[in-house]
């Protein structure tokens, strides 16, 4: 991104003239505010930013961002964004998606974009429900959930989006919470700085079809007990008096009383660990927002991006063969003359 002049945007520069049409009280509003605030700080020219979404309540997002944008079809945003990011590496490309959009119909594109490490920033608004279609269970809904399509409770075991992303070779994986704007903004910033695909799960309250799904992380009393903040280089302890600690035992992360272990056995978070196993271990502390749940950056590791690889080959080919010459190409299989 060529930043020739210093940019001085405010949040308002990223608002559009379209009326925001989520239900009053929806967590999407808060996320929108966080993203707009961050965009003003990001230091990228508005015209160099693209938001691509699928279909869902969350996927209305691009309409409210005064950047380039596309509200596409259900589940396909990562594929569409790949076409943008791969051909225009100078752009800042963001994907906004929901738990149904990204993990149900769009699961394949998501895992492939992560594997390829396409330079996309993927914001998954996880409300653990299909909002737009009025309340069916999603691949992140807890099992046993009673919804319109599961009157006797769902018999599906949900995905853990962080585990799935890590299993799909994601180089950057984080989790945040709609309500916590500073945390959201911090995570967005880090995603932006990361080169390659960044996957951010944002717990988002759908107050109409799945209200209070995140109570254990947002309730006044519950939050302090259950939020495990991941901070690079710091010991992972949590609770009002830091009374709980995370340790790695035989390859799994466990929560133990802080005073039950020597301080140096407490896990010191390393976002950059080349092996994703530690991040995976952390992702298994909770399965959904129930009980102690890590928030923050699970993993931020470097590896080559798809777009840089692809574009480098173009440069190399031109260096080696010179720019394309159509007349020569047409003659490349051997010719003969007829007089």
């Amino acid at each position, binding site marked *: 991104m060529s930043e020739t002049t210093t940019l001085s945007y405010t949040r308002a520069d990223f608002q559009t003239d379209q009326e925001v049409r989520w239900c009053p009280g929806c967590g999407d509003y808060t996320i929108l505010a966080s993203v707009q605030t961050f965009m003003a700080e990001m230091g990228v020219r508005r015209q160099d930013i693209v938001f691509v979404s699928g279909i869902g309540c969350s996927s209305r997002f691009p309409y409210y961002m005064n950047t380039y944008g596309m509200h596409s079809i259900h589940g396909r945003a990562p594929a569409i964004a790949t076409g943008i990011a791969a051909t225009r590496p100078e752009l800042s490309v963001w994907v906004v998606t929901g738990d149904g959009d990204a993990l149900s119909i769009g699961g394949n594109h998501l895992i492939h974009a992560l594997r390829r490490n396409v330079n996309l920033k993927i914001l998954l608004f996880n409300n653990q429900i299909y909002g737009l279609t009025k309340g069916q269970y999603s691949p992140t809904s807890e099992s046993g959930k009673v919804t319109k399509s599961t009157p006797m409770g769902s018999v599906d075991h949900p995905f853990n989006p962080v585990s799935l992303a890590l299993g799909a070779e994601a180089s950057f994986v984080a989790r945040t919470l709609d309500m916590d704007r500073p945390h959201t903004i911090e995570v967005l910033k880090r995603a932006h700085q990361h080169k390659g695909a960044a996957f951010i799960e944002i717990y988002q309250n759908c107050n109409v079809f799945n209200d209070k799904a995140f109570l254990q992380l947002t309730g006044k009393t519950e939050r302090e007990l259950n939020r495990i903040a991941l901070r690079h280089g710091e010991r992972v302890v949590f609770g009002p008096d830091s009374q709980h600690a995370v340790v790695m035992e035989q390859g799994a992360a466990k929560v133990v009383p802080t005073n039950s272990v020597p301080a140096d056995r407490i896990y010191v978070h390393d976002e950059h660990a080349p092996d994703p196993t530690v991040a995976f271990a952390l992702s298994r502390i909770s399965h959904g927002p129930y009980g102690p749940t890590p928030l923050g950056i699970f993993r931020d590791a470097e590896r080559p991006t798809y777009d840089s690889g692809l574009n480098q080959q173009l440069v190399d080919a031109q260096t080696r*063969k010179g720019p394309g010459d*159509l007349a020569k190409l*047409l003659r490349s299989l051997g010719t003969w003359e007829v007089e």
Partner: protein
Amino acid sequence: MSDDTLTKDRPDLSNRETIDRVVIRFAGDSGDGMQVAGNRFTDDSAVFGNDLATLPSFPAEIRAPAGTLPGVSSFQVQIAAFDILTAGDQPDVLVAMNPAALKDNLADLRPGGTIIINTEAFEPRNLEKAGYQTSPIDDGTLEPYLVIEVPMETLTKEAVKESGVSGRDVLRSKNFFALGLLAWLFNRPLETTISWIEEKFGRKPEVAAANIAAYKSGYNFGFTTEAMKTTYEVLPAQLSPGTYTNITGNTALAWGLVAGAQQSRLPLFYGSYPITPASDILHELSKHKNFGVRTFQAEDEIAAVGSAIGASFAGNLAVTGTSGPGLALKSEGISLAVSLELPMVIVDVQRAGPATGMPTKPEQSDLLFAMYGRHGESPLPVVAAATPSDAFDTTFEAVRLALKYMTPVLLLSDNHIANGSEPWRLPDVSDLPDISVPFATTSVGNGHFLPYLRDPETFARPWAIPGTPGLEHRLGGLEKEEVTGNISYDPANHQLMTDVRAWKIASIANDIPPVEVDGDDDAEVLVLGWGSTYGAIKAGMRRVRRRGIPVAAAHLRHLNPFPANLGEVVRSVPRVLVPELNTGQLLRLVRAEFLVDAVGLNKVAGTPFQVTEIDDKIVEMVER
């Protein structure tokens, strides 16, 4: 016979007869190198100046065990002293490298035709694999034909002895032995293939030496044994002057895209998932990164079309290619492109269906799918290539329409065009028109960019790409308000947008040439075709005309919209015949549109039309 000097200069005592065309089919096991042999013979003949057309036939998707019927691979070529249109209905000469190849192809051979047999492959195990109880060489099966028996394996082994090649690799040269024999039989020059071998196997000199030795040895075998009493010569054809190359449809299509990108000054993006018979377009394009071509092998066809939508939004010439099953998966994405009015070319190299069908066989059964294969009212232009070389021009036209009208365009080819080849007179690239379309750079709507404010002529909306300051805008698949592009559920607006989208495509009729009618003014039958049936139709019509029956033919490149004069054309003849490799798809379109009682000639067998099928049907219609 292992003598390495060319016996060519020796006086030739056999009769040399001049003929005006011949159809040769090379048939053998997948591992026998028949495609190479066929292609070499084709190129030699091309350089010699013949007109020609080829029809390769690959074994079905899985590689069958050596020697079995499903493992047979063949290559048919017709070479001629005049301009021909197909690879021929029936081979005059069959090269059979093993019993399975003979069994699989014998029925097609013209009565009295010539068979060149690799006798050593006709041993019990191979005979059994091919389902022969007794050897057809001895049991009278081949009586109606002229048979040249050649102990090809022994001779090849002998020939390559000194090349340095050993073990299994020795017999790999036997296709060149067969090719050499044909070079003798048809008096082809040897140099072209020899230098081809030298270049191709440059890095493996022993292989090059073996192949050249086998090739010459085959030639010499014919010469010295006088394998046939007569050799043949097909004189050069009177082709229009120019520089020619021999090209397959897939390559021509890929090059058409490269040309389209160059002439529109856009970087080319090709998002695709491999599928027979379209994969070679991906392969070809991925070689041309120095043209600024980006190829993306997507995880599936949905991602392929998705990536193309993104690339188009980002300002590329975006293309996605596939065959029928993949087109099915792209349906929803294409309808998004229709709604977003983004330029894009979707290539469908048709194969025989439904489901997985017969992936290596041609068919034209995706036309109505191309027309109507999307939910909602979702019109787009449909164009179809008629021959391998025509794929270049048709592709270029598809690119032109996509950009000028800001629309996805569906480009149809098929297995027959894709893998068939023909001589192509190269265009002068400096004559290719400029088809560039400027990106939007300024906004008219007082500070708000209006993505659906259309060009009053073409109804195309402006193309504003990311990176352009001030034109930030959002597109979406919900119905949009005309001009602003904002979401709209207004009934009148939906009606308007539906009408505009339809009108935009329909109006292309004014921007394309009228369909040309070839043949007699007083034609009793008009043969209307599209796609790969071109050659068979033209050849069929010629034959009928030679019999004094007035007939005409018209071939459509544009299937949607139709050329403006098509109604007039079909209404001005007593009868219209529509031959198609489907159950009557263009037929249905023409009947619905023009209410003429056109009749179909329909074949859904995974094989192209024989010229005689067309010919007979025309005669039948006239006589009735």
